[in-house]
């Protein structure tokens, strides 16, 4: 059993996005975080100070641990932003502004 089977999901046509250039499959309606989790990715950010990996923590937009760069916009909360076909997602280093 997986979550999709549990609820009898019949998702609309899937599509791909890229994560640092690598193709990742996504389903319509998912957030960026959900698509990354589904692809087995659980961290997509390095912290500003110690450069430690982070991903989803609170899952509801409160903690800001899941920040990611989507289509060149840094600091998007992956747990809130819906994923769209062709999105270019980049792992985020520090502030995401390349400094």
């Amino acid at each position, binding site marked *: *059993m*997986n*979550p*999709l*089977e*549990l*609820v*009898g*999901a*019949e*998702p*609309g046509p899937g599509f791909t996005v890229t994560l640092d250039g690598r193709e990742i499959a996504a*389903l*319509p*309606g*998912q*957030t960026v*975080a*959900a698509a990354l*989790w*589904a692809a087995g990715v*659980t*961290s997509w950010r390095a*912290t*500003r*100070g*110690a450069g*430690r*990996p*982070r*991903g*989803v*923590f*609170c*899952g*509801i*937009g*409160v*903690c*800001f*641990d899941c*920040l990611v760069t989507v289509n060149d*916009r840094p600091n*998007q*909360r992956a*747990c*809130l*932003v*819906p994923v769209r076909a062709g999105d270019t997602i980049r792992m985020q280093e520090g502030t995401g502004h390349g400094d």
Partner: protein
Amino acid sequence: MATERPHLAVIGAGPAGLAASLAAAAHGVRVTLIDSAAGAGGQFYRRPPAGLGARRPEALHHQWRTWRRLEDALAARVEAGTIRHLADHHVWCVVPAVPVGFVVHALLGPLQEEPVTVRADAVLLATGGYEKVLPFPGWTLPGVVTAGGAQAMLKGGLVVPGQRVVVAGTGPLLLPVATGLAAAGVEVAALVESADPKAFLRRPVALAAQPGKLAEGVRYGAQLLRHHVKLLPRHTVVAAHGEERLDAVTVAALDTHGRVRPGTERRVPCDTLAVGHGMLAHIDLAESLGCRIDGLNVAVDEEQRTDVPGVWAAGETTGIGGAALSLAEGHIAGRSAAARLTGTRLDPRAWARAARSRRRAREFFAALDTVHVPPAHWTEQVTDDTVVCRCEEVTAGAVRNAVDELGAGDVRTVKLLTRAGMGWCQGRMCEPAVAGLAGCEQTPARRLLARPVPLGVLARAGDPDDD
């Protein structure tokens, strides 16, 4: 004509905000229901988006029939034009309007840049809460998520973070999280609860008053048994291990004083830890309006009114107590607001049933609260190099130093000396930890904005033509 009715802005479309909107709309008020999520339902009734085509979303829920009733009633009201539902609207501030009423400032969509304002005669805050997690070594590793977060990703995105999970902490939320993950095919290696189940037996009166709740607990117990989930009461997670990702946790038994019993530590391999130590109310909007805060919750009277005229509050923003309590409070708040706004005679008998379930639920949760307390000596497990403030990467050592060497005596001073709580989340995640490590009470944070706001939006917010 519908547009001449008084106008109530309800913020939050969870159980509380939905019940409030429906009650107010049914009693002569025009409602604008504003919520940051793409769909109504809040945390409890979070569902997968339409694109995922879930035919049986109820498989991840309980009280689904109640949701269907709320959903149908909302759709009918929206159709009739008495409720306007603004989804994807992130409210960052509510201010009194001149000469009367309120202006609700929101940012549109997930990017949260486009401003929207809503003017209303009164506002009802139903913004719910978020999970509290106390730190321990390794709690910032990917794979460690809040229990509610795991639940939210599961209910909303139909995804799980790994194959083998430990669910840990304290509180009633751990039960639906463990059973939900197990039903979705994740191996739940253990449910680690720091409370002592025997403590329930000392509170028979409040608990017996809620037979439905007890039955719910028994149902969860049966499901856990069916999935062979090992229950570890009076245990705690003392550390999470891994390099770039979680690969195990260490759990240990607690003594009757809430201290780890030496020698009881054992390592449990897992790729996910879903952890939570209770809930905290979202009170920022109430704080910026100047509402009185009682402890860490918005203070309300019998009618769910705050002490600021024209502002009501309902659901977990006024205190944590689950979906049924939120529904009851929302109903009362909506009825009260409608009566006050339409100038009809107030008759509390009209909501006697809701008031009764509110009283029982509050008593029940007050009893639960005395049982589900984090281990009294949790700070002893927090090593100096443990990051406490996740945003600013402030360690427990730095907080201790601020208190012991620099003489900080409260959370505010620790914050100024260490930057704990000054990052993106504005202390929402680290406040209980900083207070605990500093040995002081957690107090309301006085955050003036509920959401980060682009400076351009902030600069224009006072413009009279911004509507």
